[in-house]
C-alpha cells in the first residue's frame, strides 16, 4: 500500500508541519517514507510544495511522478490547482477555500471557486473558519490534515500520535487544541463525502 501526497500552499502557511505530522505517524507504524520539501527563496511568500510518499514497501524516488499523486492536499485554493499535473486521473483534491492573496494579479474569487467546483473528486472547506470555531485560527493547516485523513491510510489515532509528538514540547493545551482542529477537519470532510 503506497500513498503519494502533494502538499501545497504558500511559504509560512504550515504545510511542512502537516508533512511532519504525517511523517512521524507513518514512521511510528514502521512504514517507509520519503518527503521532499522546498526550502530557501520560495519560503518568502512564494508557492511551496512538498512531495510526501508513505508506503509499506521501500520508496524509490523522492519526487512523485506527474500523474501519480493520490491526493493534493492544499491549504490554499489557487495552489491546489497548480499541482493538478501531478494528480492521478482518479485522485482527490482536498483544499482550503480561503485565498492567500499576496500578488497583484490573483484570480477573481468567483472564477477560482468555479474551477474548484468543477473538479470531479474533491473536498473543499473553509478551514480558517473551522479552525477559529475549534479554538485557534492558526490551526487551519491541522484542520486540512483532518480533512485529508481518510485518504492517508493512517488512523485518527496515528495522526493524534503525530500531533502529540510534534507539539508535545509546547504544552498540553496546544496539543489538545490541535487534536480538536484535527477532528473538526475530519467532520467537515465527512459532510462532503
Amino acid at each position, binding site marked *: 500500500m503506497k500513498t503519494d501526497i502533494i502538499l501545497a500552499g*504558500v*511559504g509560512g502557511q504550515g504545510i511542512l508541519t502537516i508533512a511532519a505530522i504525517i*511523517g*512521524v505517524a507513518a*514512521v511510528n507504524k514502521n512504514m*517507509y*517514507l*520519503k*518527503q*521532499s*520539501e*522546498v*526550502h*530557501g*527563496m*520560495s*519560503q*518568502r*511568500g*512564494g*508557492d511551496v510544495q512538498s*512531495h510526501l510518499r508513505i508506503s509499506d514497501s*521501500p*520508496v*524509490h*524516488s*523522492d*519526487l*512523485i*511522478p*506527474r*500523474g*501519480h*499523486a493520490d491526493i493534493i492536499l492544499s491549504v490554499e485554493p*489557487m*495552489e491546489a*490547482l*497548480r499541482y*493538478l*499535473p*501531478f*494528480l*492521478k*486521473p482518479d*485522485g482527490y483534491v482536498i483544499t482550503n477555500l480561503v485565498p492567500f492573496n*499576496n*500578488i*497583484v*494579479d*490573483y*484570480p477573481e474569487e468567483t*472564477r*477560482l471557486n468555479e*474551477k474548484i467546483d468543477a473538479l470531479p473528486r474533491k473536498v473543499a472547506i473553509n478551514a480558517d473558519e473551522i479552525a477559529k470555531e475549534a479554538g485557534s485560527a492558526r490551526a487551519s493547516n491541522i484542520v486540512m490534515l483532518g480533512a485529508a485523513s481518510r485518504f492517508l491510510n493512517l488512523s485518527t489515532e496515528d495522526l493524534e500520535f503525530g500531533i502529540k509528538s510534534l507539539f508535545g514540547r509546547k504544552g498540553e493545551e496546544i496539543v489538545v487544541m490541535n487534536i480538536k482542529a484535527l477532528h473538526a477537519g475530519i467532520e467537515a470532510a465527512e459532510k462532503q463525502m
Partner: protein
Amino acid sequence: MQKVVLLGDEAIAQGAIDGGVSGFYAYPGTPSTEIMEYAQSSKEAASKGIHRIWSANEKTAVEAAIGMSYAGKRAMTQMKHVGLNVAADAFVNASITGVNGGLIVVAADDPSMHSSQNEQDSRFYGDFTMIPMLEPCDQQEAYDMAYNGFELSEKFNVPVMMRLTTRLAHSRSGVERKPQKPELKGSLPQDPRQFVLLPAIARRNYKKLLGNLDSIQESANNSPYNKYIDGADKSLGIVACGIAFNYLMENYAGQCPFPVVKVSQYPVPRNHIEKLRSECKAILVLEDGYPLVERMLKGFFGAGIPIMGRLDGSLPRDGELNPNNVAAALGLRIVEGADVPEIVRNRPPSLCPGCGHRDMYNALNEALVEYGTGRVFSDIGCYTLGALPPFNAINSCVDMGASITMAVGASDAGLIPAVAVIGDSTFTHSGMTGLLDAVIKNSPIVVVISDNSTTGMTGGQDSHGVGRIVEICRGLGVDEKHLRVVNPLRKNHEENLAIFKEELAYQGLSVIIPQRECIQTAARRKRAASKE
C-alpha cells in the same frame, strides 16, 4: 534499531557526528544550510564539544577545516555549489597538501536553480582535483558516506568530496544509525612540511597524489556504493549516478530489465563500466547536473557504442532529473495529469510585510529619480527580491560581494553616481575587501549596507556583522562625514530620503547603513526569550 527520519542534509551531519568529526565549518547557503543547523541543535554534538559555529564565508570555512585536519582531527566543511567557487583556492590546494585528520568537503548543488544563480555541477571540482568523490543516492547513503568518509580521506591522505543535489538535501527519510566512533586525539602531521606548498614541496606532493590515483580508482571499483546490477535485456545498459538511480528504479518498481551500473563513488568505476560496454549495445547515462560521465564515456570522437544522455537530447540539457524525464529517456509511456488551469498565476517570493529592506528601497528609489534608472548594483540576500515589482530597484545580482566592486567599476566607466546594495552578512562574507578598493580610490559611489542583523534568506542564521558594521567601515577608512546610519521605518521616510539625496550628490565614497533587525529573526528571538 529504530530509524530516525532525517533530511539528506541532516543525515550527513549525523553521520559526521557518529563518524568522529571534531568540527563543522560552513557559511549558510541553500541547499546546504541544514547540515550546520542540525549540528548546532544536536545535543550530542554539544556534549562532545564539536565545533559548529558559522564562518564568515566558504573560504574561511574550508581553511579552518584544513587547519583542524592539520592538527590531527576530523573536520567537515559544507557549502552550496557556488560557495565552492568562493572556497576554490583553499579547496584545490588542499588536494595538494593532503590531510592529517580526515577532511570531508560537502558541496550541495542546485540543478533547476531553485535558490541559486546557476546550476554548476561540483563533480567537476572533484574530477579535476582527482580526489575521491561520493554522491549519495538516498538519505541512508548520505549518512553512511559521512560516517565512513573520514577513514577514506585518511587512507588516501586527501580530502574527500561529497556531492549532493537539492532533492536529496531537502528530502526526509528513515535512516539507521551506527555506533559512535570516538574523535581523534589530535596529532601533528608526520612530515612537518606536508602543508608547506612551496614549489619544491608542492611538486613532490603532487607526484604523490598522482601516484595514488590507481589506488583511488581501485577503491571506487570495489566501493560498496557502486554496483553492477545485471539485467536480461542487453539492448541497453544504464549508468545511474547518485539520486538518478532512484528515478530509474521508480520507473521499473525496483526491477530494471537492463543491466545497470549504480555510481555513487567517483572516479567512475572502470570495471563496471567496461563490463557494461562489453555486454550492451548502447549506454544511457542518467546524472543530475552536467553531462560529466556522459562526456567521459563518449570521448572526443564519439567512437564506440552509442552513448545517450543530456548531450544527444535523450534527456533535457538543463534542469534537474525527475521520474518523468527519466521515463521519457527510457521510452516508457507516461501517464500525465491534467494541465495547470490558466487561471493559476505565478506567486514569486517577496519581501515580508514590515521588512526594513522595503523602507530602504522606497527611499533609494525616490532619491534616484533625478539620476535615472540602471545604476543600482545589488547582491545576494533577501534584498535581491528588490529586483521584482513593486520595487524594480536593482540592476545586478552576480555573486557574493559583487555589488560594491561592480559599482566601483561602473563609476570608473563614468556611470556616476553608482549605487551598491548589500546586506550585513554578505558584506562580512565578501564585501569588506571591495569596500577597501572603493576607499582607496574614493570612488563616487553610494554603498547601502542594508543591515538587518541576520542572514535572512537562508532562514536567519547568525551574521558576523551584528553590531560591527559601522566599526568595520570606519576601520576600512570610510570618511566619517559620509558614513550615515539610518533607521528604515516608514515614519522616518522623509529624513532618510534627504540623507540618500545628500550622499548621491557627493562626488566621493558614501556608506549609508539602514539598520533594523529582520522581523522574522526578531520574532524568533522574542519567542525564544519568552520561553526562558
